[in-house]
Every structure is written in structure tokens, then in C-alpha cells.
């Protein structure tokens, strides 16, 4: 890119976008004067309406209770703070003695800490903690009295299964942490809490098994999380690109899951799970290509059926990306590939269609994507109507009007069905499908082959955290293939544990 052009883009960016930076008030230290602290807090919060303060006196000492409206449980607040403090009698009623009693003798719940700056205080208050500010003490005690409303544990929407747990992650990170801890009762299971997001200070939790994970992998992940410059993190998808490989690839090396059982299975192989507060989608790092075809059902079904399902997914993947493009390529450039009877039927069907095959394919796939998106966004009562409209408009009227042919409708139906068989690759296959249609329609089988080759080379060039993304297919390892091409029975699977850093081609050291 010419330098002058790059400079112009930089200037434009500077005028439109602002780099995130922490608020200036966050470094303000608390003083011993509670009133002064309160003024500073109100000013920092710009007198926000949801900030509540309750001023009480405990043993003659002014104490201010601070919390945000709707974030706390009144019952918990009353039982563990108000009642004990209300009944308290101290021999030597000084602020220090009161602080000492609260910190070391009272049981204000398990979640308790002391903060010294506004920057430390605000995340706690905004997470549902109550702040206890004692006049004369330059620190504030925070105690967990969370009582905000959240969605209850329910079945994950995008990862339903036939057999197994019906629990899925929810939005609060603490509840998700307990779901993982309940499933792996091992002392080696470690959870590390971090914060990300300059303004949002979103809680993140790294979960891993200390006896399985590679230290280099952990270091790399921690470094990347620390370097996230984003202002606000509302979903795990915000931090996913920062954890992804540096090589530009259409496939991501960071997986997502809504299921605690899936997360536990992944971390038991040396991966790291990342929970993000506010979203039920946990991240799995690193994530290999073949894992997109694995599901929890594979490990609960009989091996022969699991193998069948696995292969169905592989075939579905190739169908969904290649079938429309191949149909267009063969119909336009290589009709000899069709069996004769099929060719004649297809030719008869295409007689009255005014568009070339490639345009026809692009048109109908575009219409399908429109319908799919509309079905997602519409309210449920109306959403059901989309299916009927789709069937009538596209399946019948368009074919009758001669806009598209019936074989093309079959192709798009099969393609669409196949795309739902591997939901984790939905985004990738949608874009690739369009790409292959264009390539197939302009360059035929040669173009399809080049496109496929590019895709495979791209996949093979990705070493996520030093581990090849295409492992164990390439570089090949027979032992690991037992859970890729096949799914051997648990009697064999259970005997030896796979460690991802032992996969062939890995550049990181095994623990």
C-alpha cells in the first residue's frame, strides 16, 4: 500500500475512533473521612441514580453501606450485615476495632475483601457486592451479597444432545465455575480469575488441569488476554480474535461451547477453558479442526453408531461447501461427469431457466440465507411462517415460474440440511459455499480443486499455540486417529489419555 494512502487512513481513524483508556478517577485512593470518600465516589459515578447509600451507626461509629440498586439480595444483606452489625457490642468501640471485628470475627459470607482505591471498589460494587465504609478507616470492606436476576440453568440452545446432561452455562461466571467444579472433583483443576475490558472490567476465568496443561500454552494465553485493548467486553466473541492464530484463516482456533461437560472433556486433554462473565459461551483454547466434528453424543452412543455419525458429519461438511459449486462446475464445464440419465433429467429441467447455472445457484442460496436470517430475527409466532413461505415461494412458485430448476432446489435443500449437521462451522461453510459457487461457475473443476487446495493448505499452515490445527490427520498419528476417523470404545479410550501437546508436529514441550 502506498505510504501516503496509509497515512490518510491513519488520520481518518484518529478522527473517528478513540483508543480505550481507563477513567482518571480509578486511581483515587480512599481516605479516612467517609463523607469525603462518599463525595468522591458520587462524583466519579456522576451521581448515577442506581447508586444507593445507607448510613448506619455501629457502636457509635458512622458506617456507610454502599450498593447498586437491583444487584444485591436484601435478605442476604439483612442476615449477614445489617443484623450482626445492629446487634454488635464492642468493648473498645473504635473504627479500627470495628474493622477488625468485621474482617476477622464476623461471618459476612465467604466472599470478602478490602479495597483501597476507587478503581478497586467499583468493580466489586458493580458485581453485586456491598461496600462497608467505616469512618476513620482509609479502606473499604466489600462483602458478597449478590442478588441480581439471571437466567436459570437450562439446556444449551445451540448444542442439544440426545443423551447426557441437559445443563448449559448461564450468564453469571460464578455459577458456570461451580458447574465445572462439580464435574471434575480433582485437586488439579485450577481456576484463575482475570479481568478484561478497560471499561467493562469483565470477569474472565481460566480453567485448566495443572497436571495436563503445558506451561507455555498458559503463558501465551495469559499474555494475549493481558494485551486485549478493548473497552467493553460483552461476549466471549469479543476476546476470541485476540486468542486466535496470527495466520489469517477462515477457520478459528478457538472453540466455543455452552456445555460444562464438553468443557471438562476438553480441559482434561490439556486445553484451557475460558469463562466470560455475561455470556453462556465458554471458549476452548486451542481448538483443532477435527473437533468441529465431535460432540458429546459421540461418547455416549455405541462406537459403531458414533463412527457412523462422525462420518455423516464429515460428508455433510464436504457436501455443504462443495455440492453447489460442484453442481455448477459440472453442469457448466464437465457434463460428462453426470451419469447419463441424470444429465438428461437436469438438462430437461434447465431448459426454461433464463439464468446461467452459477447465477441461479447464487440467487437461490442468497434467498435461502435471507430466509434463514429472517427466521432467526422474527418473533416466534411469525417465524414459523417463514418455513411455509420458503416452501411455497421457492419450492413451488419459483420452479413453476421457471426462475430456478427443481434439481437446484434439491441441491440447496441438501446443502442447507448438511450445514446444520456441523453447527460449529456454520459461519465458515456459508461463506465458503458462496466462494466455491463462484469459483466453480467461472473455472470449473480446476478452480474447485485450487480452492480446495488453498483451504487445506491454509488449515495446515495454522499452528495454534504451537500445535498443528490439522493434527492428528496431518502430521499423522495413528494413536490419536482412534478418536478422529473412528471412535473406539471406552475400554480403549479410557486406558490412555491424550495430551494435546503430545500430538505430532507440536512445538511446545509436554509437561
Amino acid at each position, binding site marked *: 500500500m502506498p505510504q501516503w494512502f496509509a497515512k490518510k487512513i491513519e488520520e481518518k481513524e484518529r478522527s473517528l475512533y478513540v483508543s480505550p483508556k481507563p477513567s482518571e478517577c480509578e486511581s483515587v485512593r480512599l481516605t479516612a473521612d467517609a463523607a469525603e470518600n462518599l463525595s468522591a465516589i458520587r462524583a466519579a459515578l456522576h451521581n448515577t441514580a442506581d447508586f444507593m447509600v445507607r448510613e448506619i451507626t455501629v457502636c457509635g461509629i458512622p458506617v456507610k453501606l454502599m450498593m447498586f440498586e437491583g444487584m444485591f439480595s436484601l435478605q442476604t444483606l439483612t442476615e449477614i450485615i445489617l443484623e450482626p452489625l445492629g446487634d454488635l457490642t464492642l468493648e473498645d468501640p473504635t473504627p479500627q476495632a470495628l474493622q477488625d471485628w468485621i474482617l476477622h470475627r464476623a461471618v459476612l459470607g465467604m466472599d470478602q475483601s478490602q479495597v483501597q482505591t476507587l478503581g478497586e471498589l467499583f468493580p466489586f460494587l458493580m458485581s453485586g457486592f456491598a461496600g462497608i465504609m467505616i469512618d476513620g478507616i482509609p479502606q473499604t470492606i466489600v462483602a458478597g451479597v449478590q442478588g441480581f436476576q439471571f437466567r436459570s440453568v437450562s439446556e444449551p440452545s445451540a448444542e442439544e444432545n440426545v443423551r447426557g446432561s441437559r445443563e448449559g452455562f448461564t450468564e453469571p461466571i460464578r455459577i458456570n465455575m461451580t458447574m465445572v467444579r462439580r464435574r471434575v472433583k480433582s485437586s488439579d483443576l485450577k481456576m484463575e480469575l482475570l479481568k478484561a475490558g478497560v471499561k467493562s472490567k469483565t470477569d474472565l476465568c481460566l480453567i485448566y488441569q495443572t497436571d495436563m496443561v503445558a506451561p507455555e500454552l498458559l503463558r501465551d494465553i495469559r499474555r494475549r488476554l493481558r494485551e486485549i485493548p478493548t473497552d467493553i467486553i460483552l461476549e466471549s466473541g469479543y476476546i476470541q480474535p485476540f486468542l486466535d492464530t496470527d495466520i489469517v484463516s477462515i477457520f478459528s482456533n478457538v472453540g466455543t461451547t455452552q456445555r460444562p461437560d464438553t468443557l471438562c472433556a476438553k480441559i482434561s486433554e490439556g486445553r484451557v477453558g475460558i469463562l466470560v462473565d455475561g455470556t453462556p459461551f465458554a471458549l476452548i483454547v486451542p481448538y483443532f479442526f477435527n473437533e468441529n466434528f465431535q460432540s458429546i453424543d459421540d461418547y455416549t452412543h455405541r462406537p459403531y453408531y458414533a463412527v457412523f455419525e462422525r462420518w455423516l458429519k464429515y460428508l455433510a461438511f464436504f457436501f455443504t461447501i462443495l455440492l453447489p459449486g460442484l453442481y455448477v462446475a459440472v453442469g457448466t*464445464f464437465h457434463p460428462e461427469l453426470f451419469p447419463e440419465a441424470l444429465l438428461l433429467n437436469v438438462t430437461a429441467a434447465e431448459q426454461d431457466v433464463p439464468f446461467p447455472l452459477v447465477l441461479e445457484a447464487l440467487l437461490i442460496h442468497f434467498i435461502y440465507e435471507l430466509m434463514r436470517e429472517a427466521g432467526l430475527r422474527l418473533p416466534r409466532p411469525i417465524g414459523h411462517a417463514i418455513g411455509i413461505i420458503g416452501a411455497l415461494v421457492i419450492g413451488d412458485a419459483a420452479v413453476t415460474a421457471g426462475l430456478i430448476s427443481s434439481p437446484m432446489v434439491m441441491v440447496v435443500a441438501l446443502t442447507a440440511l448438511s450445514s446444520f449437521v456441523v453447527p460449529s462451522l456454520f459461519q465458515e461453510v456459508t461463506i465458503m459455499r458462496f466462494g466455491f459457487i463462484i469459483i466453480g461457475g467461472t473455472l470449473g*473443476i*480446476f478452480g474447485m480443486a485450487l480452492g480446495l*487446495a488453498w483451504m487445506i*493448505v491454509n488449515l495446515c*499452515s495454522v499452528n495454534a499455540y504451537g500445535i498443528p490445527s490439522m493434527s492428528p490427520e496431518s502430521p499423522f498419528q495413528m494413536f490419536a486417529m482412534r478418536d478422529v476417523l473412528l471412535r473406539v470404545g471406552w475400554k480403549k479410550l479410557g486406558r490412555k489419555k491424550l495430551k494435546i501437546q503430545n500430538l505430532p508436529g507440536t512445538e511446545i514441550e509436554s509437561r
Partner: protein
Amino acid sequence: MKGDSAISSWQLAVLLFLSRITYFFLAEPRSEGPQALTAAIWIPISILANFLLLLPAYLLLQKNKGKGLLDIAAERWGRLSLIFPAGFLLFSVCVLVQTACSFSYFLTSTAYPQSSPWLFILLIFGVAGYAASMGYEPTARFGSFVFVALSAALLFVCASLWPQAQWEFLRPPVYDGWQSQLQLFVRLTLGNVETAALLFLLPAVAKNKGGVFWRWGILSVVVLDGIILFAAAVLGDYAQTQRFPFYAVTKIAELSIFQRLDSLHVALWVFMTLVRLALFLEVGGKSLARLLPSKVSRYAISICAAASALLAGCLTRWPYALERVGNLFAGGGPVLLLTVLLPLLLLWSKRKGEAGQ
């Protein structure tokens, strides 16, 4: 360029095997050549001859573990050592041009008769350049997939055509005079350009470097002999009318509703050609990087790919020039120079240096 990690012995063997078999599919001269059985007998002999010829270079690399030929030359000869990368670069460009021209000729003769060869040359060099620029590993891993696809395709062809094989078409080597057999031996041995790629890439192999040659050799012998004999038995005299006999075999292979899958085989050969091009782009690109200033050296593979594409596109209009290049390689001079003479000179100069001390 991405830094290159180690590849395994099998990966390099598969890459070399795919490259060799691509040459046989696309570029090996036909119709007036020796009998299939003669070729099948001389292929393993040529592999043994290659082994003997490569011994000095292999010893040189063993004595300088972790270093490639270019590194060793740079240590011994200083600026004069630039003859090595220049030689490898020229060699690679010639192989690339020949491969690309044969490939475009193949496509325009079979699946795309009315298309411009420039199209195929530019696109395939684009993708091959991308693969080469990602390093050895992605190309090697891609090669593994291509190997599996090739194996499946060969199995399909054999299964569908086995009943039609007429083994009486395999004639003994006596029909080919000693002169033509010697020419065949020289072409198979000294025209084996993959030996130069092997020497260049051997330092990138993590373990079991010695196993690369034998694995490659055994694969080549088994598969090439099998294909040559089988194609001769299936096609018979019809093979003499075909410029690409292996392609003709895929044209007639039919199994139930699976007929005329030759276009799908074309896709497979696109993969194989990509592997060969990427392999020699690695060699040429890394050689060119030694010759260019450091600021520009990271574009070496792209420059090599662009130059080769340009040359190949121009040479498709002058098949005589291409034939001269092919004859030069068939004569064995370039391979002999790079894989035998220059390593021997390096070995000798090392010994001279030690003797001087």
C-alpha cells in the same frame, strides 16, 4: 517467509514421491519410448543408482549436521559459494517452467480445450506460491492428504479395470535395444530432479534423515511400476495413441454409475502439480533469498513464482524451447552437477582445508 519447522521423514518422502509421480503423469515422453516392462525393470535400478550418486552429498550433510548445502558452501567458499544458490535457483525455475507448461498443455488438451494456458499458469502459481510461502510444513501436510486421495483414486481405477487387463501386452525388454535402455536408465537416474530437492530439504527433516530416500524409493518403485504395467495391460496398443496414457486409463475406468470420472482425476492431478510446484518454489525461493539483499529477500518466493509463471506463460508459445529444456534435464547434466559434482567439490575443499591445517 514463515520460519520453517521440522518435517518428518515420511512427509518429505511423500512430497518427493508425489512430485515424481506428477512428472510421470504429465511430462514423461511417450509413444516411441521403451516397453512398459522395460521401464518397470529399470525404475528400481535407477533408484539404486540414485542412492550411490547421492552418497557423497549425504556424507557431507551428515558431517555438518543441522546445516544445508548452501550453508556449508557459504562457510567454505565465501562469496564464491553463491554459485550454489544460483545453480539451485536456475534448476528450480527450469523444473517449475517445465511442470507448469506440461500441466497447462494437459489441461488444454483434455478438460479445457478452448482456454488460455495463461489462466491455469497464473492461478496455479498463485496458490503454489502461497503454499510455499507458508513454509515446508503446510506443503508437507497438504501432501499427506493428496497422498491419501491418490491412493484412493488408484485403488478405484485398479478395482474397476482389473478384469480388463490383458497381460499379453507386457513384452519383455529384449525389444528395446541396449542403447535405448541405457538412455532410459540415464533419463530415469539423472533426470530424477527430486534428488536435488531431497538434498536441499534434508536438513529440514527432524529425525531419521536416512529413511527419507528409502521410503521415497520404495513408494516410487511400487506405485510407478504398478501404474506403468497396469496401464500397459489395460490400454494395450491404444496407449500409443495417447499423449497422457494415465489420463486415458482414468477415462475408461467405470464402476456402476461412476463413469467418466476423469475430470475428478484432473482435480487430483491439480493437487499433485501444486505439490510439485510448491516443493520447487521452496527450493528456488530459498536459493533466491540468498542472492537478494535482506530487505527484499522475504519476497523471494513470490518473485520466484512470478518469474516462473511469466516464463512458463511465454514458453507455451514456443514448444521447441521447452523441448530443449526437457532434453537438457533428460540428459542428466543439471542433476549431476547439483547433486554429485558440487557436493564432491565441497567435500574435497573441506578435506583440503583440513589438510592445510
